[in-house]
């Protein structure tokens, strides 16, 4: 007997669905369940139900609130800067046309570098004493002393410094996506605007950006989600320091679990973090992306 199409489709999807259920949904369920317990870090140790106590502790904790704001600030800085730089590069490549192709290829390379390597590399460039950036700025006469800016040791600017590798790594992604979007803008539209006397800024803000809207929205949502989860680059550069000034949510949860051995509290933090990410991301998808409505 022949099975129905609907059933056949179900069979095709079942293995992947099962995999995600076992290895994503179930761990998430465990995470949420653990958040209601006080758990000893020792394997097989005691496990006491404490209700919402871990959540109360999380919200009462300065570290947690601080990490929340830092994660938000970090995400905004990373996404804004890489969008501005990526758009600039995409416009540059578009206006230069075909001859820039080889440079577009070269521009891809940071994307392939492991975040951990990128973090290490920029740490090496920004580190006090033998960091090259301070020395170059000093030699250029911008700084009066190579160590004037403590990129990774000054709590006031460290959150910006640790964002640099992330921006460096993923500007190429923004650039490529926006470049592809620019290629899809009909030429006659630009020509018509030009005949109407539109100058460059008007062309950019009135014609190009509105037409790129769906592409921009997807790129911002995708990168926003990734930036909010930053871990590798920050861990290797500062490990969250100095004085927690670069401790974002992923780092705090990791440390709460591993360093301070408090799985219950870490699970509550993880659950809040997850819910906040989902809420913000779904809101962004629904309002700015609006799949299907823009075409």
């Amino acid at each position, binding site marked *: 007997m022949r099975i129905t199409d609907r059933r056949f489709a179900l069979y095709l999807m079942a293995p992947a669905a099962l995999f995600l259920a076992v290895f994503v949904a179930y761990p998430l369920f465990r995470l949420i369940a653990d958040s209601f317990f006080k758990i000893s870090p020792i394997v097989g140790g005691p496990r006491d139900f404490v209700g919402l106590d871990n959540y109360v502790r999380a919200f009462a904790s300065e570290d947690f609130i601080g990490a929340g704001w830092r994660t938000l600030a970090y995400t905004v800085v990373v996404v804004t800067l890489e969008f501005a730089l990526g758009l600039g590069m995409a416009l540059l490549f578009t206006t230069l046309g075909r001859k820039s192709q080889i440079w577009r290829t070269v521009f891809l390379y940071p994307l392939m570098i492991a975040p*951990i390597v990128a973090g290490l*590399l920029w740490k090496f460039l920004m580190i006090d004493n033998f960091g090259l950036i301070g020395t170059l700025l000093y030699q250029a006469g911008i700084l009066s002393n190579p160590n004037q800016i403590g990129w990774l040791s000054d709590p006031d600017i460290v959150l910006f410094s640790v964002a640099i590798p992330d921006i460096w790594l993923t500007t190429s992604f923004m650039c490529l996506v926006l470049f592809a979007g620019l290629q*899809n803008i009909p030429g006659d539209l630009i020509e018509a605007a030009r005949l109407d006397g539109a100058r460059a800024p008007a062309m950019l803000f009135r014609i190009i950006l509105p037409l790129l809207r769906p592409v921009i929205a997807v790129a911002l949502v995708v990168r926003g989600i990734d930036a909010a989860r930053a871990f590798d680059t920050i861990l290797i550069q500062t490990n969250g320091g100095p004085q927690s000034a670069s401790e974002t949510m*992923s780092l705090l949860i990791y440390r709460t679990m591993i360093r301070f051995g408090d799985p219950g509290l870490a699970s509550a933090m993880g659950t809040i*973090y997850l819910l906040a*990410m989902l809420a913000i991301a779904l809101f962004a998808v629904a309002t700015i992306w609006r799949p299907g409505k823009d075409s």
Partner: protein
Amino acid sequence: MHVAERVKHDGGKPAAVPAKPSAEASAPGGGRRRRAVNREGLEAGRRSTRIILWILLAVAMVLYGFPFLYLLFTSFKPPIDTIAVPPTILPREWTLENYVNALGRSGVPASFINSAQTAIISTVLSLVLAVPAAYGITRYKTPSGRAFIMAALVTRMVPPVAIGIPLASMMSSVGLADTPIALSIAHTTISLPLSIWLMASFFEAVPKDLEEAATVDGCSRLGALWRVVIPVVSGGIAVTAIFAFLASWNEFLFALLMTAIRSQTTPVVIANFQTQFGLDWGSMTALAAVYSIPVILLTLLLQRKIVAGMTLGAVKG
């Protein structure tokens, strides 16, 4: 001269969908949006403007290219020179000492094998699960398929740190602690949703008549998928494989949580260098270079495919 150049311009753009399936398959079909052409539009015309723009591009390229070059240069410096004050850009003398130190350190060669093993297993697992699932979603358009692809999108929003720890304890409770298999499964939780989305877009471009003709000729549905559809989307499968491989090769957080001695991957070893050997920057830069170069070369080689994969979702909106 400008006219000739503009006419040729179209060839340089990254195809939003790899050429094979889409161009041949859906060309006669109705409703497909005409390729937009902006060669008249955004290219700068005046010579002086173009010169300024080329200079800007050169500056950007130096800024973006320099950090990795500096890492390479540093890796060839004598170890003591890597932390010289003030630092120099080029090595005073070129030496392979850092490479010998880094690669000779115990655990380093093994970590490369672990990284490769993990990435390969995870790539295969992603493809085996994603290809049929994406086909089921796009070919049959059932409500469960739509629900499933949305669920896959939501999975992308899950922070790895949130599931990493429960996942690690699950793995150890089934005796898979500290194995490449466990880490591959963890990496597949990241690459599978992406693979499903990518493959769904590639299947979307295959016309239905293709496998209908095959079924009329006596193929089963599975046979039609295997013998007719899969070969058509093979380019898309390659793109998906590259992304799954890269995701695993570069991943760090799961690797940190789930590996110890036996299955440590190179990113974890690089991170450990900091704590274990103090400021051995020379070895660290050498190891980082060795780990990055194969994927950079792979990318430059396969850049068309990678660009296609990266821009696919976004441009289709």
